[in-house]
């Protein structure tokens, strides 16, 4: 048995995972239209390769990756491109972004695909390219392009691959369900991932509130020598990448660094399946398993949803009562964000759509003054001092915020969860972080313009000095002439005469 380590802080919110009945995958709706954002990942948005009116097939690439940190977008089913325009997309700030809208023909005709069965014979660059071309971005929630994570160029390489089936967010059971239903595929995908990065160990991490998933994974891992299932006590946010690494390996990712810096790669179970399908079947990422839950839906469960399916259609299929609640969340109750428009689509990072009733998730209580009780510091998994960060965030004291390591905050929300004063702490930190980012960019800009200004000043000074030197030289020459007894007026007349004579000579 592997030794498990504890993390600092953490909380135990009600899990409520049974509500979404983990263990079964239901087919999602077939909507009339799919809305496919060009940016469903972290990095540069993809660039469309289809035009309005084009017929597209399922699995066809409709937007290609732009630059290294980017992934393409594929059509999840066949139909016609009817618009390429700005639509509301899932994002914490409720923004709009360019989407390709495909009207489905209902035929679900697919473009032929072919995969690699003998992947062990292929080098990592080829395999990484397959992963990238399949449009795979982390399905756990952050959506970082998977190929980039695999392309770590650390000298010592990656020694451990962690398949993160922690799923510590309340309500969500998508990973749990995927682990129960597709354990073998996960292990097979993990083997490919380990092969690509050269990892010697695969840790299949499952929180102990998911015994069925752990059992399925253990059974699947029997045939794989390098894989080991590790279960550990349920605590939020154990599923945070950095926290999980500490739990399993008793190592910390250096501040400002990434797991690869200490030779670790974390991937979501569904990402492992996507990689398996991309390589062995040549199938791009066009669907995902999403938890639809909350007391405002009549038929909660885990659904295999085509990317681009409007949340409205998904909720509609689940029997959503729109009068029961006051918000719909994209993601879980701890880190998810409120959906501003039900027309926005399910994307690669949509692990949950939560439609609670008003009783279930009452509106937030008014914030009271901070009394520095310190409960937040006890709950913080990053060992920060949230109460101090709050004061500095309010004072916009960027220097102190950085000194108190605001940038190490993972925005898990444990501090706000325990705050007796009901202060929306995470909101303050997010806004302070973007304030610091803005200030840094502003500083770069002002450094640049200061540089320009100083260069100009220097040039002007140089010119003035040169002018002055010239004048002084002329003056000195004139004085020298005067000293030698030459009459300056007479000399000027003679110079003029000489010039005139020269001119006349030239004219004639």
């Amino acid at each position, binding site marked *: 048995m592997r030794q498990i380590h504890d993390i600092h802080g953490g909380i135990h919110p009600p899990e409520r995972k049974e509500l979404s009945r983990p263990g079964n995958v239901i087919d999602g709706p077939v909507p009339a239209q799919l809305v496919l954002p060009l940016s469903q990942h972290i990095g540069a948005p993809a660039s469309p390769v289809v035009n309005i009116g084009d017929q597209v097939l399922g699995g066809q690439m409709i937007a290609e990756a732009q630059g290294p940190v980017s992934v393409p977008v594929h059509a999840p089913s066949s139909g016609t491109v009817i618009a390429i325009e700005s639509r509301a997309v899932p994002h914490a700030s409720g923004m709009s972004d360019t989407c390709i809208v495909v009207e489905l023909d209902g035929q679900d005709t697919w473009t032929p695909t072919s995969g690699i069965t003998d992947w062990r014979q292929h080098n990592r660059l080829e395999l990484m390219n397959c992963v990238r071309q399949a449009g795979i971005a982390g399905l756990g929630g952050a959506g970082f392009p998977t190929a980039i994570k695999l392309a770590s160029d650390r000298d010592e390489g990656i020694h451990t691959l962690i398949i993160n089936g922690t799923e510590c967010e309340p309500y969500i059971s998508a990973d749990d369900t995927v682990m129960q239903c597709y354990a073998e595929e996960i292990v097979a995908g993990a083997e490919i991932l380990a092969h690509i990065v050269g990892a010697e160990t695969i840790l299949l991490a499952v929180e102990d509130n998911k015994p069925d998933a752990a059992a399925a994974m253990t059974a699947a891992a029997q045939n794989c020598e390098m894989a080991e299932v590790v279960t550990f006590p349920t605590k939020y946010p154990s599923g945070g990448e950095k926290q999980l690494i500490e739990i399993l390996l008793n190592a910390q990712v250096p501040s400002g660094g990434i797991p690869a810096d200490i030779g670790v790669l974390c991937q979501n179970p569904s990402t492992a399946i996507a990689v398996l399908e991309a390589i062995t079947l040549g199938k791009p990422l066009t669907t995902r398993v999403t938890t639809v839950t909350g007391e405002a839906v009549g038929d909660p469960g885990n659904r295999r949803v085509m990317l681009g399916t409007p949340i409205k259609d998904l909720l509609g299929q689940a029997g959503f009562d729109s009068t029961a609640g006051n918000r719909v969340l994209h993601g879980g109750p701890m880190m998810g964000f409120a959906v501003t428009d039900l027309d926005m689509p399910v994307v690669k990072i949509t692990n949950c759509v939560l439609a609670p009733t008003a009783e279930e998730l009452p509106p937030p209580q008014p914030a009271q003054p901070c009394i520095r009780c310190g409960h937040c510091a*006890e709950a913080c998994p990053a060992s920060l001092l949230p109460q101090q960060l709050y004061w500095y965030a309010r004072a916009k004291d960027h220097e102190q915020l950085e000194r108190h390591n605001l940038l190490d905050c993972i925005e898990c929300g444990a501090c706000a969860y325990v705050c007796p004063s009901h202060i929306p702490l995470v909101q303050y930190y997010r806004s302070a972080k973007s304030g610091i980012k803005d200030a840094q960019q502003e500083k770069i800009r002002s450094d640049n313009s200061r540089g320009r200004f100083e260069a100009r000043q220097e040039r002007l000074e140089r010119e003035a000095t040169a002018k002055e030197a010239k004048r002084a030289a002329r003056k000195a020459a004139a004085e020298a002439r005067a000293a030698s007894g030459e009459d300056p007026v007479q000399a000027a007349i003679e110079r003029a005469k000489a010039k005139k004579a020269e001119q006349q000579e030239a004219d004639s």
Partner: protein
Amino acid sequence: MSLLHVSSPHIHGPNSSVESVMKQVLLATIPGVVVMTYFFGPGTLLNILVGGAMALAFEAWALWLRGRDYKTIVRDHSIVVTSTLLCIAIPPYAPWWLLLVGIGISVLLGKHAFGGLGYNPFNPAMVGYVVLLISFPLQMSSWTEPRGIGEVPGFVDAITALFVPGSYDAITAATPLDLFRQNEGMMFSDLMSARPEMMGTIAGVGWDWVNLAFLLGGVWLLRQRVFTWHAPVGMLGALALCAVIGFDDGSSTGGGSMLFHLFSGATMFGAFFIITDPVSSAVSNRGRLIFGALVGLLVYLIRVHGNYPDAVAFGVLIMNFAAPFIDQYTQPTVYGMRQETKE
């Protein structure tokens, strides 16, 4: 439906609010107040009731002056906690004007002059207490004789003493800490045997029980996770350590036994109800441990070498000044900053 646009997290921990924290602190004072009432009569209880009413009036007035919503903010109970703690510290059977001045100073100067709840750099109750102690030393050092030595006053006596100052003359006596202070030339064991009726066996008749009762309330608060153990353990540990080092029963300069220091005066009350005020103490756990330890050291130094018999209020106020400084040097190691992961 209109979609509520709020930031994560969307759920909140159970039953936690400023009110519930404050209520728990108030509940935890009950054992101490009951024991005080047993040994010294209903004076403290009456102080708490009348003082609480005064504090609510001052609070509402201050909020109204500051243009705040006085109807809702008063409900956080924080002002009742402040007034209760001050009234426990003030001698029973004090005249009404002493309460009025003390509470007025606590609420207006200690709390609202700095911006109200959460913004006060000093413990408001201790601000009020120290102003009273310096301005009215006579009234502030008149503790009633504990039960067993004298007659304990009744409720009518208490009301008379409060509202018609001078008309009721409670039989006051020096507290054990006063005796300790006044008999500097005496060996501690001699003092204990010379005044057994006052000094009892450990730390003074009645006072040991009062301290035990506040310890009980404090431990309950610890179990309720209202605060962490760091500040109380720091203070009690430092005080005990100083007492052990300074206890020299063979000479006249001995500093009193460890149990005497731990169970007399305001030690337990201070350790669990005063220095645990989160607003005015250091913020990190390590900071609170240091904060408490330095309070303990100051309490010992002032008790043994200073001019006042007890020193919790001074110790706390002095350390309130130092709290931001302690904070600067006691930041916990953040995830990813551990030495071995730094390379």
